């Protein structure tokens, strides 16, 4: 299924189908113009790509003892993007693995939208279908740290992008905040449409491919839990 295909009949917002592959290719191969290391506890760099915008780079760390909060950050961001892609939702900005200045990590398209915490009453400015998709996504991945600091919105189009899929939000448990899911429930966006169920079916059909190349028990367990939740959603047809 091409991305967003299943939503076209009901005028669901299309998650920019074709260009996604191109964006990933640009992120993987495009010449780098400059790299800016940001001030902050978490190591993030902004990368300017020659003739093609900006991206956010996060280093991979395989040292869980010394660097617990960075651990698996890259793998989980790639995994979240892989799940989003199989669903065809277009919620997670395109992301690829890349080595920058000698450090391995993930490079993710920078989205020029507002962090939701800068937009009071954001829930009234987003499109209900984007909110419903984001709620399903967060339910599936069991996100335990979705607050207004880690998703972006474009008030002019009502679109949502989800960021910060890492150890704190997906494995360890962060804030136990589920702001998107809660807002979707408060707006009564809990019933899954036929198209939404179809998307979940596409995810289930291909989710095991996400296990390839990893032997990490926590990641394998994380994927199994997604399968269970997906099956629950298909059986019940509701997020309620």
């Amino acid at each position, binding site marked *: 299924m091409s991305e967003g295909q299943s939503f076209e009949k009901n005028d669901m917002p299309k998650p920019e189908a074709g260009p996604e592959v191109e964006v990933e290719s640009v992120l993987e191969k495009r010449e780098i113009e400059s790299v800016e290391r*940001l001030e*902050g*506890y*978490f190591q993030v760099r902004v990368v300017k790509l020659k003739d093609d915008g900006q991206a*956010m780079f996060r280093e991979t760390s395989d040292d869980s003892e010394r660097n617990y909060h960075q651990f698996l950050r890259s793998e989980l961001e790639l995994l979240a993007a892989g799940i989003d892609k199989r669903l065809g939702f277009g919620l997670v900005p395109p992301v690829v693995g890349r080595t920058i200045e000698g450090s391995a990590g993930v490079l993710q398209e920078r989205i020029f939208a507002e*962090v939701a915490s800068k937009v009071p009453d954001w829930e009234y400015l987003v499109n209900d279908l984007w909110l419903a998709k984001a709620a399903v996504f967060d339910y599936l991945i069991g996100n335990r740290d979705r607050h207004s600091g*880690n998703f972006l919105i474009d008030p002019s189009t009502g679109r949502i992008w989800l960021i*910060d899929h890492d150890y704190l939000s997906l494995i360890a448990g962060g804030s136990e905040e589920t702001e998107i899911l809660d807002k979707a429930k408060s707006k009564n966006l809990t019933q899954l449409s036929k198209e939404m169920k179809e998307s979940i079916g596409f995810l289930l059909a291909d989710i095991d491919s996400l296990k390839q190349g990893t032997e990490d028990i926590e990641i394998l367990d994380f994927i199994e839990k997604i399968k269970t939740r997906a099956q629950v959603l298909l059986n019940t047809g509701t997020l309620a």
Partner: protein
Amino acid sequence: MTLFYFVDLYELDRDAKQRKIATFKMQEDEPGKVEVDGDHGHPVLESINREGIFDYKNARPGKLYPYDGMSFLENLKYYFRSGYLLATDVQKMTVNN
């Protein structure tokens, strides 16, 4: 000599430059009082004051606000970690009286 603990919070502008939104600082001998230097009308600061942040470090339920002192300061870096908004670790600064 007075010891302060502080955390800087940055936002990212369109040109990939960071702009400091605020400095949250606490005097060592006033542990329950975090002062905020910055534009108090900035929506992120209003959001922090209204909604609070979470206690990632101790995984405790409930929210933390500036009046929670060091616990609040220590958790800013976990709450704001995307790069779009990014907080520093707790830093120290000594000021001559």
